């Protein structure tokens, strides 16, 4: 194999090592990764604890949303029922959909990623453990507060996709809608934080030798999932911000009387909303691929084909968003494109299904509980997929649009594509976190009750939908042919719920959380998460030579446990993991990892308070919460760029690597770039909104300020970019170990000041040209993009001031420094984005 980084692959022959390990090495490793005690547990950042709490919270939200579903089914069990009022029913279906999509499905798979990936990749932990903790706590606190809105009658009631004009102030003047718009803000932040963690974790912390081609399918699926979050979530961030700005400041993004368009919301929402289905499905497909191989006790058939299908699904799923809009009267050819893509996306999904079937057929199935969930899931998902192809056909979609047929379709897809694999996964992987295995006998009951309940609930809905029953109605008239079918659906829902209840009984009887004496590899899996682990993950990080290392090398577990592979102890006395190259996973350097901290918790709690204060219009407390949240974030990252005396470390067998580096090889570089993609996507979707509204209402557009001013703005931003770049060069010019003085950070601060000056000229220029954000869609979108730029300029100032403070404390180390690198590249990005936006808004349409 060709080396990717210059690492000599001959060195791999040194493993497993044979010398006895020095005494006390394991104890030192355990001490470094020790968890806090008592209340200090709240500050723990180990993936075992954070991941477990994350999974448990996601499951709690699944139960809560399920209870809401039962309430709705009771209401619909017979015609003209009065179990729920119309208003409460609206809140129930909105909260059910929102919680299932935002508070259960996405967090649940991210949670499983946090829990499983480090062990699966044999990393000590994911690269930013405090970010994982932040993502969890923001989700936990914010999610519970959001759910509590139901108890005070202020829960959102406009459906989980919140279409304007129903959700505009004209038709929804109360704050219920604001609860949704701001309430999911923290969930978006949490999801993106998790995605950054997963992308960098999968690409940079794999065990040596675990090339992309040997990566577990779940890791591949999580990688595609996280990239999709980074591309899709900015769209929903933007549309929720736009609708909130319309409601709060009367900026008419979606008001057609002033040059806005309600369909803009639908485009932005579904650009997120449909990929969201695959965001949920793909990780579950990754779990399925892993469980299928174990269930059949044979390697997955068509591994590469399966990966290709995951990547293809990731791409094509971004070309199907407008199939939710077939009934809106889009141009005919445009409609055809989305219809074609909607059918095309079933091909890669089909490839995966056939790979699973072929694997099951080529092996010998052991009919365990996970096996039942795997096979059941294939059947249910295929049924949902087939009705998906049906509604991908435009004339058929017109017939069943917004009917119960759609409710049936989406539940078959989501339950078969995510919930059933998830339950299978809970049985399959529970041996990693529990002292006792869950009951096989109860598990089979759980499966059959859920399987039967699902079909009883949702199969009749195809008929009620075809017969014309619209979705989201709180009741219906008798003798329309809906009565019996709805009663059957309600009975089915309770049978499904009984299955879930039995699962809770199984958990209560058998699940006992542990981080060391776990039940282990109950079903005989072949991947690395089944190695013996502690809070430090594996004792030594193995060299990976195949896709199922435990099947191919039965002695591997013992060698790993005896410390015969990489990093058998702690090389610096601190928490650390090996950073490897993205393709071939060659060891590159040792990353020092932060330990427990209360600041991620503080930042998360105040992030949630920030959004909820804005919702209830407690602006002063909102500003206070925002400041505290930002201060907590800065305090938590303070320790993550600490210079230590030791510059290299022995990671086993005499192989020496550097400790913490900067530049394109560093994991921090990858994380920042991922974040910049998120920010760039928000701006890109803003630009799309601008162009879209121009296409719909060109008559409200006014002329841009003069060209000279535009050139001045571009020049200021180019200077800002130069100042940021110069700060890095200035630092690089100093000898290692010397203090570079205050000039580098001051140059970065100059860059931030130039950004602010350019923004000032831009805003005042548009105002002088007569553009008013309340007057037209053009004004609203231009000022929204400038507000986005303003937010980033403020962030740049805070970052430059933070850099200055670190410099004042003598923490700016030459010739490279992670903090300076991050700040300079952020300012450079904001400058380039500012140039692009200013030129587009001022030169188009001219």
């Amino acid at each position, binding site marked *: 194999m060709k080396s990717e980084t210059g690492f000599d692959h001959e060195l791999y022959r040194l493993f497993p090592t044979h010398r006895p390990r020095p005494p006390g090495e394991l104890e030192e490793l355990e001490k470094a990764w020790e968890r806090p005690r008592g209340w200090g547990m709240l500050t723990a950042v180990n993936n075992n604890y954070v991941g477990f709490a994350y999974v448990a919270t996601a499951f709690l939200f699944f139960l809560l949303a399920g209870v809401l579903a039962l309430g709705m089914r009771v209401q619909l069990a017979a015609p003209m029922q009065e179990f729920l009022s119309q208003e409460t029913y609206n809140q129930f279906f909105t909260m059910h959909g929102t919680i299932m999509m935002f508070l259960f499905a996405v967090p649940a798979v991210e949670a499983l990623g946090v829990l499983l990936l480090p062990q699966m990749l044999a990393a000590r932990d994911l690269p930013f453990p405090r970010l994982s903790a932040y993502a969890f706590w923001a989700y936990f606190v914010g999610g519970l507060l959001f759910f509590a809105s139901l108890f005070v009658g202020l829960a959102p009631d406009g459906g989980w996709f919140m279409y304007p004009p129903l959700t505009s102030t004209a038709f929804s003047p109360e704050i219920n809608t604001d609860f949704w718009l701001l309430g999911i803000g923290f969930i978006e932040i949490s999801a993106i934080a998790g995605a950054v963690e997963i992308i960098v974790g999968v690409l940079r912390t794999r065990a040596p030798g675990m090339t*992309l*081609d040997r990566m577990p399918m779940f890791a591949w699926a999580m990688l595609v999932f996280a990239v999709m979050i980074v591309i899709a979530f900015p769209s929903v961030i933007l549309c929720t911000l736009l609708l909130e700005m319309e409601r709060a400041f009367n900026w008419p993004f979606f008001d057609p009387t002033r040059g806005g368009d309600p369909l803009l919301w639908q485009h932005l929402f579904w650009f997120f909303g449909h990929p969201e289905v695959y965001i949920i499905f793909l990780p579950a497909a990754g779990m399925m691929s892993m469980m299928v191989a174990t269930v059949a006790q044979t390697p997955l*058939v*068509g*591994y*590469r*084909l399966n*990966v*290709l299908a995951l*990547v*293809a699904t*990731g*791409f*094509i799923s*971004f*070309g199907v968003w407008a199939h939710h809009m077939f009934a809106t009267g*889009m*141009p*005919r*050819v*445009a*409609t*055809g*494109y*989305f*219809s*074609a*893509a909607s*059918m*095309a996306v079933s*091909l*890669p999904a089909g490839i995966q299904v056939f790979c699973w079937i*072929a694997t099951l057929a080529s092996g010998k199935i052991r009919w365990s509980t996970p096996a039942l969930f795997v096979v059941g899931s294939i059947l249910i998902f295929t049924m949902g997929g087939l009705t998906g192809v049906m509604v991908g056909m435009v004339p058929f979609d017109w017939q069943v649009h917004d009917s119960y047929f759609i409710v049936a379709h989406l539940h078959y897809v989501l339950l078969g594509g995510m919930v059933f694999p998830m339950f299978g996964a809970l049985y399959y992987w529970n041996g990693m976190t529990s002292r006792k295995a869950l009951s096989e006998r109860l598990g089979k009951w759980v499966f059959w009750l859920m399987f039967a309940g699902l079909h009883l609930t949702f199969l009749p809905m195809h008929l009620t939908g075809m017969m014309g029953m619209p979705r989201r109605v709180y009741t219906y008239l008798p003798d329309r042919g809906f009565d019996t079918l709805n009663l059957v659906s309600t009975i089915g829902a309770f049978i499904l719920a009984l299955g879930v209840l039995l699962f809770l009984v199984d958990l209560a009887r058998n699940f006992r959380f542990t981080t060391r004496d776990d039940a282990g590899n109950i079903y005989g899996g072949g991947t690395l998460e089944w190695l013996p682990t502690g809070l430090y993950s594996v004792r030594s990080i193995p060299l990976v030579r195949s896709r199922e290392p435990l099947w191919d090398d039965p002695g591997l577990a013992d060698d790993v446990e005896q410390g015969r592979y990489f990093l058998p102890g702690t090389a610096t006395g601190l928490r650390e993991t090996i950073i490897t190259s993205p*393709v071939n996973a060659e060891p590159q350097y040792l990353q020092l990892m932060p330990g427990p901290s209360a600041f991620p918790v503080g930042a998360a709690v105040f992030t949630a308070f920030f959004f909820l204060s804005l919702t209830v219009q407690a602006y002063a407390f909102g500003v206070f919460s925002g400041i505290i949240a930002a201060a907590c974030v800065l305090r938590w990252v303070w320790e993550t760029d600490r210079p230590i005396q030791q510059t290299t470390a022995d990671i086993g067998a005499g192989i020496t690597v550097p400790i913490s580096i900067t530049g394109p090889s560093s994991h921090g570089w990858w994380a920042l770039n991922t974040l910049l993609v998120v920010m760039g996507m928000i701006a890109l979707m803003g630009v799309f909104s601008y162009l879209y509204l121009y*296409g719909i209402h060109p008559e409200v557009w006014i002329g841009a300020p003069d060209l000279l001013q535009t050139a001045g703005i571009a020049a200021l931003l180019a200077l800002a970019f130069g100042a940021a770049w110069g700060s890095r060069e200035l630092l690089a010019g100093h000898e290692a170990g010397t203090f570079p003085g205050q000039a580098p950070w001051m140059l970065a601060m100059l860059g931030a000041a130039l950004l602010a000056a350019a923004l000032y000229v831009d805003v005042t220029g548009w105002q002088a040209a007569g553009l008013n954000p309340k007057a037209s869609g053009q004004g609203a979108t231009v000022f929204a993009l400038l507000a986005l730029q303003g937010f980033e300029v403020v962030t740049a100032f805070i970052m430059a001031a933070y850099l200055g403070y670190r410099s004042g404390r003598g923490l700016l180390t030459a010739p490279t420094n992670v903090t300076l690198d991050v700040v300079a590249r952020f300012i450079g990005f904001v400058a380039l984005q500012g140039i692009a936006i200013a030129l587009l808004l001022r030169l188009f349409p001219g």
Partner: protein
Amino acid sequence: MESGFSNRTDWLAATLAFMIWAAHFTLAWTASIVFPDAPVARWIAAALTLVSFAGLFALWRWRGVETAFSVAGLGILLAAGGVAYDTVPALIG
């Protein structure tokens, strides 16, 4: 399945192929809403299809793909199929 499959993996080529598909889709759709139901949107789609095929062919040559039964080969073929499929509405829609 695996036995006839080239062991040379090239995930970059496969990803770039799907990016070509994405660019084709985005631009063809943009043309269809900028020029709703006008013949020019169909001509643009047809031209984009030819450009996309050329791009995929160039990608095949650049990455030195040896067989269709490889990660890169299948990725490029799937993307080409997607491009062709997406062009159908422009021709008959």
